């Protein structure tokens, strides 16, 4: 299970909003200021769809990522599940 925690502030909120329509993605929260985006296999974030500036994009998982970055690009990031320890 992949989990991405998203701090509930304006600059990161598009991470949650752009995931709402995706079928294999669960969104919960915000609980005490954090949204949590979960998926079984993978999650892909699209920078342009989120209208996210590069300086924030490079810190996209600052809320916490239980997963592994499989692809790290200027406009797209894909994370997959990991067995690596927290």
């Amino acid at each position, binding site marked *: 299970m992949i*989990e*991405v*925690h998203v*701090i*509930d*502030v*304006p*600059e990161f909120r598009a991470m949650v909003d752009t995931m709402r329509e995706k079928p294999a993605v669960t969104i919960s*929260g915000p*609980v*005490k*200021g*954090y949204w*949590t985006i979960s998926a079984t296999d993978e999650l892909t974030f699209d920078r342009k769809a989120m209208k996210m*500036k590069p*300086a*924030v994009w490079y*810190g996209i*998982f*600052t*809320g*916490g*990522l*239980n*997963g*592994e*970055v499989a692809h790290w690009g200027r406009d797209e990031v894909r994370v997959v599940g*990991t067995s*690596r*320890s*927290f």
Partner: protein
Amino acid sequence: MTEKLATRDDASSAKSFNEAMGVGTGDLAGVKHAVEDGIRLALHGVDHTARPTWKLNETVEFYRDVLGLPLVHAITARGWGPPGHHDFLHFFFDAGKGATIAFFYYIGSERPEKYAPEAHHFYFATHTAWAVDCEEELVTWKETLETRGIQVSPYTRHEILESIYFTDPNGYPVEITRRLRDTESIDEVDARLTMQAAMDVESEARAAGRLIEDIDTVWRRKAKLVNAYKEDAQ
């Protein structure tokens, strides 16, 4: 308060540089934390920043004449007590709200090579960000400086700041920034969890005799701490 003004130590009379400048070892073993004595120390903004310059004319021209910041104070001194101290000038440009941008010019010295500017983020990490109040002011700064012939960076939107950067004649980076929003209590919570994750990972890496591998390692630990924090709420 136990000391009276007239009887306090005067740093310029100190016998060594380390004594004059309060140079410690950096070792925190045995150093008390604020919670132990209950005394709440507080700061109230910037008085001044200070850096050395070996370009007196260019520095005054840049800050006073190009940026237009008033030169509001200048100190001159014949040495300063501790042995080997150069004669110097220490001068201050108004940076708003009582803060100043200050420089030291050490008479008869040449810039040591290690103080030469470098095109590297380690070097640029040492900078001061000066505040403007709104978007219009930031745009005015960028467009005006560019019209005056200064190379200015594109705008950068960080999480809660939008900034422009340029360098002074010494090669020092200057940042002009505006707040995009006020910080909320969740920002403080998040900062605490982020730094706890990173500090824990640093401690473990040190104990294993290695460096932290990547930010992903911190992000994974952060996820664990956020999970615990959220479960605490239920």
